[in-house]
């Protein structure tokens, strides 16, 4: 660890490489986090199956790419497939826990998460998969920084997707209904908003955005059945730091997390990178709560 730290000091260009890689992956985290914030804000549900949606989106792209479709074209397909899955899950399970105690919905979505994860494990095997985009790399700073083009493309894709969702919520009629429901579900219902439809759309949209994120993940990185929970907890961490309503701070927190994670992985060794992510979640929650407790409040 000390060696690696010294290496960073001696070769600052390495830091730049880590930073760029981290930020590029961070945009994908932002998609999952934004979806989580949406569902949390509108339906008062913390969706533990968030990461499984990402994982399944990745598999959609993987299989289509294996069938010969260029992976970039499969992003909308993954989103559409996950939209349907999200909608189906809402209609079968989630609508029953919307107005229940928060722990009930956490546990129910945790059940969904285990179900999807294990189903993927049974159907697709535990192997690590990637989809080859066939794009090359940019070489910056005389070739000292290597940036694969697919990461840049996926970064841009993620930003476009996020912006589209943002505009949809701001401009469209359904988006307005969703935001109204987020502010006060009961009042929205009285004013004639079909909140059940709002909930199903919100949950499905969330699944779709996660599916698209997964599609980008499999191109830039990899998928396997067990990667879900890490994305869920990253999303939760980002939302806890950034708050529910603010797109810009969600993006900022995500990019920050991507960078921090990359540095930690380099310093501690990749075998501790996952441990770092989960410990960071604990540390952030405890730290935020300690700050609030000075105001004699707590996280809620």
């Amino acid at each position, binding site marked *: 660890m000390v060696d690696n730290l010294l290496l960073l000091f001696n070769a600052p260009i390495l830091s730049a490489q880590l930073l760029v890689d981290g930020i590029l992956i961070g945009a994908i985290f932002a998609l999952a986090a934004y979806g989580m914030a949406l569902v949390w804000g509108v339906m008062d549900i913390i969706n533990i199956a968030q990461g499984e949606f990402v994982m399944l989106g990745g598999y959609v792209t993987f299989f289509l790419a294996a069938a010969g479709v260029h992976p970039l074209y499969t992003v909308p397909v993954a989103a559409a497939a996950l939209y349907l899955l999200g909608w189906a899950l809402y209609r079968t399970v989630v609508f029953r826990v919307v107005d229940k105690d928060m722990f009930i919905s956490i546990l129910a979505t945790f059940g969904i998460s285990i179900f999807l994860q294990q189903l993927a494990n049974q159907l697709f095997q535990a192997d690590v998969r990637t989809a080859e985009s066939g794009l090359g790399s940019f070489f910056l700073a005389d070739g000292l920084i290597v940036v694969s083009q697919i990461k840049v493309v996926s970064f841009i894709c993620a930003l476009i997707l996020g912006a589209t969702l943002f505009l949809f919520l701001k401009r469209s009629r359904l988006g307005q209904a969703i935001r109204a429901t987020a502010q006060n579900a009961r009042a929205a219902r009285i004013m004639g908003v079909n909140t059940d439809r709002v909930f199903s759309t919100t949950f499905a949209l969330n699944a779709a955005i996660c599916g698209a994120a997964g599609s980008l993940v499999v191109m830039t990185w990899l998928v396997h059945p067990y990667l879900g929970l890490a994305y869920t907890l990253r999303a939760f961490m980002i939302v806890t730091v950034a708050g529910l309503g603010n797109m810009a701070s969600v993006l900022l927190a995500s990019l920050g997390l991507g960078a921090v994670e990359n540095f930690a992985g380099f310093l501690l060794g990749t075998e501790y990178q996952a441990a770092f992510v989960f410990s960071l979640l604990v540390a952030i929650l405890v730290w935020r709560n300690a700050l609030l407790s*000075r*105001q*004699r*409040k707590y996280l809620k």
Partner: protein
Amino acid sequence: MTPILDVRDVTKAFGGVIANDGITLKVPQGAIIGLIGPNGSGKTTLFNSIVGYHPIDRGSIWFDGREISRLRVPQIARLGLLRTFQQTRIYGKMSCLENVQISVPHVHEGLRTMLSPYPSEVTERAEGLLEFVGLYPKRHLRGGEMSFGQQKLLELAMALMNQPKVLLLDEPTAGISPVLINSLMERLKRINADLGVTLFVIEHNMRVIMNLAQHIYCLAHGQLLAEGPPEAIQTDQRVIDAYLGAR
């Protein structure tokens, strides 16, 4: 009389809204003091500040000779300064008796007391207090099953179980059946006289507060508008204007 509760120049703002602005008031030992004011005048905020619910922006609060402005809710409660809530708060899934039992004072509490069963004196005292507020026949019902007014009485019994020196009551008669109000007032007076508990009461029912309190403070728009004995407050033009909305 020395004040047991001494609020000095307390200011509390939420964002841009100043809920309490330089409030100074004293509650003498053994007295019953009233706090009135129109809705939104900052009465409950002041109660919250006193019991440590949120940090205050300016000023200080003294209780029984020591400053409590920086202490936290449970610490203040253990000193013997307790409050009841406007929207009652009781433990909904526990029986009334259990609600009262667990409200014993928690000042000196070693591991042994924490982990051992209640001595029978505690149960007897709890039953006596339930009798005192008229809930004895319902002692085995769950707290959450009771009506709002009954929960209010239960909360009062819980507070008394804690043997406070000062009790802050937030609208004790709201939601209580009108036929019970007179006897509740008599109970409150007995709590004060027999048990020696100093009372500081927020109340909207003017008949009750004028009858109960020896001295009344009136808040409006976060500021102390008037104070004095009930007769003076009743005829104070500023108080009347505040309630009728004139400025």
